[in-house]
C-alpha cells in the first residue's frame, strides 16, 4: 500500500507525486557525498544507496558486508547475500574483508554506513536485538548482524527509523549498536574511534545531532508534517528551533528511483 503525501501541483521545479517511502529514500540519498564508499543493508537502505549513485553521488561505490564491492545491481537484491550482489563486481571477497574496509586508515574515513533499528535514543544508540528483558524478551529481533560493527567503526552513518513513540525511547532495551553513547565524549571514553550517527531519516523528518552535546535535534520536517506532530511521536524532547521544511523530491529524482533503482517495485 502506498501513501500519496502531496501532489505539489504547479511548482516551478517540477515536483512529482511521490510516496512517503520514496521521499525517505531520496532524503537519505541526498545525504551521501559523492566519492563515498557506501555500506548498506537490505531493503530501503540498499535502494537509498542505489539512488545516491544514480542521482547525487555518481562516483560512490556500494559495498556489502558479505564482501561484494561495486556490484552492478542490475536487479534489486533482497538480502546482502543475494546472488544479485555477486554479479559484475570489482571484487567478490568475504566478510572479513568488508569489515576491514570500514576500519583501515585509508578507506575507513570514506565509508558511509546506512542502518535501521527497532529503537533509538536521543544519542542515536540503536537496539536491534530485543524488546523487554534480554533473558526473557517480549520480542526478539535479528540481532546486530554487521550493524554494531559499522556503528563502531565509521565516521558517517545514516539511520532509517519509523517515527513512533515506542521506537524513539528514553532508554533502549538493549544497546546493540553504539551511537554517541552517553553524549559528548562518550565514544572516546569507551574507546571507539569512529563518530556517532550523522542523521536519522524517518517517515516524518530528518533528525541531526548537536555538534557539542551530541543530542538529537529536529533538522527538517517533511511537507505536510508539523514539528509538533513529530514531538508527539517521540518519548523524549528535541530542539525544534532550527527546523525547516524539506524540499520535496523532484520529478527527475522520482523517475530515477522508480525506473533505475527498484523497477520491479520490490521495496519502494
Amino acid at each position: 500500500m502506498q501513501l500519496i503525501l502531496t501532489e505539489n501541483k504547479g511548482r516551478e521545479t517540477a515536483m512529482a507525486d511521490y510516496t512517503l517511502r520514496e521521499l525517505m529514500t531520496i532524503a537519505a540519498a541526498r545525504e551521501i557525498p559523492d566519492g563515498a564508499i557506501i555500506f548498506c543493508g537490505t531493503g530501503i537502505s540498499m535502494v537509498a544507496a542505489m539512488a545516491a549513485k544514480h542521482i547525487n553521488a555518481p562516483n560512490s561505490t556500494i559495498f556489502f558486508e558479505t564482501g561484494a564491492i561495486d556490484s552492478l545491481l542490475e536487479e534489486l537484491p533482497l538480502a546482502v547475500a543475494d546472488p544479485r550482489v555477486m554479479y559484475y563486481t570489482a571484487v567478490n571477497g568475504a566478510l572479513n574483508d568488508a569489515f576491514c574496509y570500514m576500519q583501515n586508515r585509508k578507506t575507513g574515513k570514506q565509508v558511509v554506513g546506512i542502518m535501521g533499528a527497532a529503537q533509538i535514543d536521543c544519542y542515536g544508540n540503536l537496539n536491534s536485538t530485543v524488546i523487554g528483558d534480554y533473558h526473557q524478551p517480549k520480542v526478539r529481533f535479528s540481532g546486530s548482524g554487521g550493524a554494531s560493527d559499522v556503528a563502531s567503526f565509521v565516521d558517517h552513518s545514516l539511520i532509517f527509523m519509523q517515527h513512533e513513540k515506542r521506537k524513539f525511547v528514553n532508554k533502549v532495551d538493549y544497546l546493540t549498536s553504539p551511537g554517541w553513547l552517553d553524549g559528548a565524549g562518550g565514544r572516546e571514553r569507551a574507546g571507539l574511534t569512529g563518530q556517532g550517527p550523522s542523521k536519522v531519516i524517518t517517515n516524518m523528518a530528518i533528525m541531526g545531532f548537536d555538534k557539542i552535546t551530541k543530542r538529537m535535534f529536529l533538522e527538517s520536517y517533511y511537507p505536510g508534517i508539523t514539528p509538533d506532530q513529530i514531538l508527539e511521536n517521540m518519548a523524549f524532547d528535541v530542539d525544534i528551533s532550527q527546523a525547516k521544511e524539506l524540499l520535496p523530491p523532484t520529478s527527475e529524482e522520482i523517475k530515477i528511483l522508480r525506473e533505475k533503482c527498484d523497477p520491479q517495485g520490490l521495496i519502494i
Partner: protein
Amino acid sequence: MTIRSEKLMDLSSAIAAFVTDRCHLSIGGFTVNRNPMGAVYEIIRQGRKKMHLYAHSNGQGVDELVGAGCIEKLEIAYAGNGRFAPTCIRFKQAVQNGTILVEDYSNYQMNLRFQAGAMGVPFLPTRSSLGTDIINKWGFSREVREQDPRIPDEKLVVGKNPFPGWADTENLVFVPAINPDVTIIHVQQADELGTARIQGLTMADVEQAKAAKHLIVTCEELVTTHEMKLHPDSNQIPHFCVDAVVHLPWGAYPTACYNFYDYDPFFLNDYKKIASDDNLYQKYLDDYIYGTKNHQERLDVAGDLRLQTIKADPRTGYAINLDRK
C-alpha cells in the same frame, strides 16, 4: 588420520559419522545463500538434539535447525533472512518461549572468532561493540559456561591495548576462538580428495572450514583433481582440511548457489506462513523432511518445474526476472 579414499560419502553416512547429539556445529552460507540445506534436512531427519550451533548470519539453515528442535544453544550475530524474514520466525519464537539459549555477537566478531579458531590462537582483538550491551549482557551465564569445556568461561573480555599508544588505541574487545566439532559447507565444486571451490562470495565459509575439528563439504559438482588443479587460483579449501565429501546437486536449495540456481522465493514466502503456525509447521516437518528419505525426495516435493524456474542464467549467475514479490 583420514584415509583419502574414504572421504567420498553419501550424505546420510557423513551426517551419521560426524554430527552427534550435543555436538558443536557450524554451517556455512549467509541468509538466503549457500546454506548447506541438504545437510540441514538430513540432520533433522536423523533426529539430532541438544546441539550447540555457531553462525554469523545463516538465516534459513539456522531457522530450520531451531524449528525442528535440534538446537539447545546458539551463538549468532544475525538471525534474519533478508526481505523474507526480517527476524527468522522459528528462531524468534524459540527465544521468546525460552526453548533455546542465545549468545549475541556482531558479524565481525563471529568472523574473528572463526578466524582465531583457524589460526589456533585463543582470541583476536577488535574495537567493535565497545560501550554496548553485546559486551555488558551475557546470554550464557558463567554456570552454563563452566559446564561445557568447549566454550570459554567469558563471553568476551575488554582490555587495554598491550602496545600502549600504538594505532591510537586504548581499549579493545578480545573475542574468543571457536573450534566447532564439525563445520558443514556447501560449495559449487570439489574433488573426491576434498579440495573445494566456492564461486561468488565466500562469506565466512573458509574461516569456518579451517576452524573445525571435522569438515563436511557438500558440492554441486564432483570434479576431477586434475580439473581442480588446472584453476588453483579459484580454489579456497585444501583437501587436508576435509573429512567428508558429499556430491549433492541442489544441496543449498531452497537457498541460492551462485552460477547454479537462485533462492526459491515461492518456497521462502510459503515458509513465512508455515513457520508462523505451529500446526502448519509440524505438517511441514512431516511432509517435507521426515516424510522424505533423502535430499532428492525433498527436491521432488519442490518439483522439477520449480527447480527449472530458479535455475541460474549463465550470464549473471542468478535467475533473471524471477518473480520475487
